[in-house]
């Protein structure tokens, strides 16, 4: 879970884009109706499915991912087809990413690598309002 603070809310009818500050990094979330307790300044726990977290390394060019978190790989658990990669995105926050083994091999990912964790704004949700 990612503990973040709401810094901006944009809306169009029931559709919202919420921007968060997470340890100095900007995050953004797409949502339909927002709970009335969510406003600028609110602290929340954000969640994302590990299978919705992509990993980027030596990225050049532009990507449409609204959320691009600088991080470092802290563990890799490779299975037969898939692997679970844990990346540290802040001092106390670890994010898990499930990707295919072929991506792991193609990207030559290793413990300690500096990578970018990529999450679409439509894949992040608020788990809890703090």
């Amino acid at each position, binding site marked *: 879970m990612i503990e973040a603070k709401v810094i901006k809310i944009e809306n169009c009818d029931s559709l919202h884009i919420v921007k968060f500050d997470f340890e100095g990094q900007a995050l953004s979330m797409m949502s339909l109706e927002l709970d009335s307790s969510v406003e600028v300044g609110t602290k929340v726990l954000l969640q994302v499915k590990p299978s919705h977290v992509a990993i980027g390394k030596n990225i050049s060019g532009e990507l449409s991912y609204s959320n691009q978190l600088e991080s470092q790989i802290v563990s890799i*658990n490779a299975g037969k087809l898939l692997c679970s990669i844990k990346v540290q995105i802040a001092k106390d926050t670890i994010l898990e990413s*499930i990707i295919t083994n072929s991506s792991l091999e193609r990207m030559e990912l290793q413990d300690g690598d500096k990578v970018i964790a990529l999450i679409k704004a439509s894949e992040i*949700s608020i788990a*809890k309002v703090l």
Partner: protein
Amino acid sequence: MIKIDINKKLHGVAGEMVLQVDLEINQGDFVALTGQSGSGKTTLLRILAGLEEAEGTLKVGNEIWQDKETYLKSQLRRIGFVFQEYALFPNMSVEQNLLYVEKDKELCRHLLDITDLSKLKNRLPYTLSGGQKQRVSLCRAMMNRPKLLLMDEPLSALDPAMRTKLQNEILTLHREFKTTTIMVSHDPSEIYRLSNRVVVLHHGAITKDGIAKEVLLQTNGSQKFSFEGELLDIIKVDVIFVAIVSIGQQLVEIVVSEQEKQNLQIGQVVRVGTKAFSPVIRG
């Protein structure tokens, strides 16, 4: 405006409880009344209809139906009541059932017309299908041009296709007559389609009051696509796990990581949710 402020002690399945309802309903509103069985929904309808007594006051427009001095008899309240069972007079034709309430032939013809029953007007109730009988009950309830239409799960005995047809007819009647309506229902799609206000009763008290989308939408944090189910099993596949959850009448599979699995226990009630952006929908 209908003002309801009543209370009554009830002896329910879960012991004693107090039905306490303080509610103002606007003229022309279609209110869905929902909540677990035994929460007092039917009793509230019966109190409104004057079939059961309670403490408090009832005011419909400028008319006092009940207060400290007054208690208007059921027959004198302009009420239409539709029950789950059809309660038609078996020895009277469809038309006679309607005219028994009010000798208004023109209204009778009009109601049978818009509910597609004109051809059946001389039939006896036993020759009709369940859906047809309930349409007759509905027309009959409209015959005295009620100030308040009460319906107690009127469609729950019907099959889904017939339900949808009758929902449309209820809507048509409501648009034309603008009768203030209170309907007990457990069916979210019915409530969403028909009502402009939903009141949830729990153990005799109102716990939620709002529009259907607000009251009935099951959310999980900010997730709008959420279901409650029972976690039946967790199966390891490669480095991930597949959780088997029973939701409603079916089983679903959800992929979880080792980290997500840590908080799960087989047999527990779980909430399965995703963002409204993720599900694929096909007709």
